[in-house]
């Protein structure tokens, strides 16, 4: 057919050829695609077109229907109605022929744990019958990019979470599919591994592979060519990130003020501004007219005794777009609950502002057989502080938390939590702490109310107090009126809040949260952090681990752990100052992934990294470097939209510290 058109290239045919080309270039063409579960539409008549060779992002809150959409496009989920063609194949009728044309990395970990890294890759190469020669070359390349070469003979189950994800990607890329579907591929993965992950994706893009990715990380969505916003089974909007951002009404102001929290509550007061968010050390406020409102805000805050350091207009991020679109669409138990929480908790919780330490750790060590998971760490956490505990996957964060909660006996060293020794006084310690593990740890087969009742009973709450606390948990989680839903029917954000509610039902002094927001959508994450702030301001010490560096910015102090060693400790600001020399140059450009690749070939900029949709370069003097870099990029055929000095982010710090540590380790000849 194709050949025939080439030969008979009359004027009419040229037109036809154009049409055909257009059709061909759309690797995904779905129309009216619907999937019903009983009466409920998980995916509701969506229309999707994805061009060949692009990175297409699908973002949306939990339960929006992203996974169902991907599974239908992969031909492994039955379609209720509508049509979809993927790589030229009708997935509704002919999904059997898709095999070999598509790659799919599901949300769950889907490798064979007992097989080694190399064997897993080999199995997939076998499945797709990659010839031995090509296989060898490709495997070597994939392993190198994912930095898994050293671990080729390690069973997959012994890898850290981040490495597992990278391996899964390697397996999906071994056979060069036409399109690869990635369903939340980097959920729960540390920033360094996430960078590696995207490097692999990018490197294989040059083969013409189309990437279809769903992600809860908005910075990842920023680097997609086009993004579709999905909510309630429908696609609300679909465009390039740049165009999407233009749709935010008004503009966004970034404010540096002191004290920051007071500024937030002042601006939120009386519904003055709907969207006020802490973003690192800054406040982001969405206003109808940014130019005129700057002074008004400065005066307003001054009048409240809040010192304003700076106000400037900033470009909204995709996350802001997401929040505004989703907030506009969501029915609002979410919004209503903010105030209720604050007042209720105030009544119940005595203020603990007497100073002193809530957590003290000295030389804490945990060994499993010959493997040292936590290696003589020592630190202290002040009462009422939010302590962020950061580190790559498998560095010993969860092990530390489990020891502090009295779940795991330490091998050596000691620690006190809320004044009690974690070993000797574990029984007396337990009523003082709350704990929320990585996995949803409530009963899926119990109703919301039953879960709450269970924990109320376990903590011995009775009568009025029980009723009071129950109502508080329901309101806080925004679950009032949904008491009789089964816990498994809740979406991710609700589950997390319910789990939090149950963990703090008994008003603990110290709260341990192990990746509480992993895989939760941005709106839910913001709300969750509002709660954490509230708790902290009431004197509860919060000990939290996270892979979201923007969340880490919200912490009072941070500890960074790598391979069981504590490698940095201090406030976010101090840490950045002490550990990052030089200045940060932020460059916004077209085709950021390609631009990064282009720059990393130039020796002086080899440290270039991707941050959201922009590039970050570590330079001595940002002012001098900016024009040089811009010129270089333009010569490479890239459009440079912005190149300016920017404040260091925690992600820069995290990556710098971990990479330095890795380097030391490799140079020191220590192997894992």
């Amino acid at each position, binding site marked *: 057919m194709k050949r025939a058109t080439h030969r008979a290239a009359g004027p009419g045919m040229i037109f036809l050829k154009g049409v055909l080309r257009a059709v061909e270039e759309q690797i995904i063409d779905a129309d009216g695609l619907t999937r019903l579960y009983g009466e409920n539409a998980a995916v509701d008549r969506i229309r999707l077109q994805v061009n060949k060779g692009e990175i297409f992002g699908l973002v949306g809150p939990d339960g929006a229907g992203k996974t169902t959409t991907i*599974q239908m496009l992969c031909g492994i989920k039955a379609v209720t109605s509508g049509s979809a063609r993927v790589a030229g194949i009708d997935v509704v009728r002919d999904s059997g022929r898709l*095999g*070999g044309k598509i790659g799919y990395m599901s949300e769950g970990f889907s490798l064979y*744990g007992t*097989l080694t890294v190399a064997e897993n890759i080999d*199995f997939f190469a076998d*499945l797709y019958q990659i010839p031995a020669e090509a296989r060898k070359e490709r495997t070597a390349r994939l392993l190198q990019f994912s930095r898994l070469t050293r671990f080729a003979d390690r069973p997959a189950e012994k890898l850290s979470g981040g490495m597992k994800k990278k391996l899964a990607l390697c397996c999906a890329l071994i056979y060069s599919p036409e399109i690869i579907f990635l369903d939340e591929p980097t959920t729960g993965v540390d920033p360094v591994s996430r960078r590696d992950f995207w490097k692999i994706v990018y490197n294989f893009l040059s083969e013409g592979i189309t990437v279809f990715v769903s992600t809860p990380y908005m910075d990842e969505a920023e680097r997609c060519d086009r993004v579709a916003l999905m909510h309630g089974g429908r696609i609300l909007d679909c465009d390039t990130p740049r165009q999407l951002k233009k749709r935010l009404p008004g503009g966004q102001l970034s404010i540096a003020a002191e004290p920051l929290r007071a500024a937030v509550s002042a601006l939120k007061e009386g519904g003055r501004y709907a969207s006020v968010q802490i973003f690192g050390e800054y406040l982001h406020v969405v206003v109808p007219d940014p130019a005129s409102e700057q002074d008004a805000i400065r005066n307003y805050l001054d009048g409240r005794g809040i010192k304003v350091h700076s106000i400037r207009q900033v470009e909204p991020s995709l996350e802001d777009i997401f929040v505004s679109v989703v907030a506009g669409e969501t029915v609002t138990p979410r919004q209503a609950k903010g105030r209720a929480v604050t007042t209720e908790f105030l009544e119940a919780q005595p203020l603990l502002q007497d100073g002193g330490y809530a957590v003290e750790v000295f030389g804490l060590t945990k060994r499993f057989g010959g493997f040292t998971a936590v290696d003589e760490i020592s630190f202290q956490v002040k009462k009422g502080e939010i302590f962020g505990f950061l580190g790559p996957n498998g560095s010993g964060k969860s092990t530390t938390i489990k020891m502090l909660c009295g779940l795991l006996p330490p091998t050596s060293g000691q620690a006190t939590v809320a004044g009690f020794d974690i070993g000797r006084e574990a029984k007396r310690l337990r009523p003082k702490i709350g704990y929320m593990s990585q996995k949803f740890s409530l009963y899926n087969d119990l109703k919301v109310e039953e879960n709450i009742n269970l924990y109320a009973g376990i903590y011995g709450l009775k009568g009025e107090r029980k009723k009071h606390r129950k109502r508080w948990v329901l309101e806080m989680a925004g679950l009032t009126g949904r008491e009789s839903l089964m816990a498994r029917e809740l979406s991710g954000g609700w589950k997390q809040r319910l789990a939090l509610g149950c963990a703090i039902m008994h008003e603990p002094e110290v709260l341990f949260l192990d990746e509480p927001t992993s895989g939760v959508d941005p709106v839910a994450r913001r709300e969750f952090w509002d709660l954490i702030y509230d708790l902290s301001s009431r004197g509860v010490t919060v000990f939290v681990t996270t892979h979201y560096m923007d969340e880490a910015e919200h912490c009072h102090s941070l500890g960074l752990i790598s391979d069981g060693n504590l490698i940095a400790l201090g406030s976010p600001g101090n840490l950045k100052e002490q550990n990052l020399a030089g200045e940060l140059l932020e460059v916004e450009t077209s085709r950021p992934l390609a631009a990064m690749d282009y720059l990393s070939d130039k020796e002086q900029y080899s440290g270039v990294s991707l941050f959201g949709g922009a590039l970050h370069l570590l330079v001595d003097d940002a002012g001098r470097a900016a024009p040089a870099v811009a010129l270089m990029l333009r010569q490479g055929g890239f459009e440079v939209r912005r190149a300016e000095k920017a404040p260091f982010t925690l992600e820069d710090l995290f990556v710098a510290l971990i990479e330095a540590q890795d380097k030391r380790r490799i140079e020191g000849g220590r192997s894992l």
Partner: protein
Amino acid sequence: MKLVMPLLRKEVREIRRDPYTLGIAILLPLIQLLLFGYALNLDVAEIRLAVWDQDGSPESRAYLNSYRNTGYFQVRRHVSGYREIYESIDRGETFAALIIPADFSQRLLRGETVRVQTLVDGSFPPRAEIAVNYIEAVNEAYTERLVDSQLQKAGLGRLQEAIVAEPRVLYNSSLVSKNFIVPGLFAVILMAFPPLLSALAVTREKERGSIEQVLISPIRPYEFMIGKLLPYGAIAFVEMLVVFIAALFLFEIPFVGSIPLFLLMAVLYVLCTVGIGLLVSTVTSSQVAAMLMAIAATVMPSFLFSGFIYPIFNMPKVFQVYTYFFPARYFIEISRGIALKGVGLEYLWPNVLMLFIYTLIIVGLASIFFKKKVG
């Protein structure tokens, strides 16, 4: 079919890395064999008797000796009252009690009929039934001798045996129960573990989500099924060999038929049992559910409704039909036929045919139900 090899290699690697499961897979059948072989012994070796001899005469002692002399009875206890009898049987100390009335010798001499009473522990009827047979036989033999001697005394000549029964036991002529149990065990043991393992092997992939990767690959359902069928079939066959060798050398089963034929049939049966596991796995999504279904569909029926211990002719008609739904029935007949009777396909072909058709249907259904969809 090209894609079967990679699947096979992957399965073999996975199995090898999981020595725990593999160990249990090989070890459990052996333990089961030992337990069944040694513990499932229905033979009645010795009947322990309690005796209440109210007469205490030479005649009553002679009567008692006629039991002792058979070698099947052992007098454990002399008692003097029902209470002691019940107590002794209740506690399981004795199995039966013989009560000889006080006028035993008196009535004998008067030429009257004497009534002796025997109480047997009926709590495990199979044993009781055999014991009752023995006791009746001894009593009748004694009576016959008694009548004969009286006739002689009266000058009426001797009793001449009218009919002589010549029992001939074909096949398991020693009538040892292990010879009957063990060949049946092959069928039961292979129904217990291979389906379970294969059902778990697939549902585990479903639970873990690794099956999704396989679903989107060019692999066809039947290739996937064969990829699972062969390695687990091989494990099951090894189980079979282990059990078979143990049966021959440990239990010294006289195997009269053709061993190659038997092994060939075992391969067929093994494919069938593993196939059942796969079929179960296609309709369940969790390991626990798969386990329960596998047990419900395989272990219990093959134990109870296959003729393994409980003879099929004893069952109500409905259940006789019911037994045809479980392949263990066919293989038990094949196995016992070859091992004990030494017969070949000329007699066994209907069972073999049924088993073959059954296997085809099972594997076929499994391939059909194994949709390349997640839900």
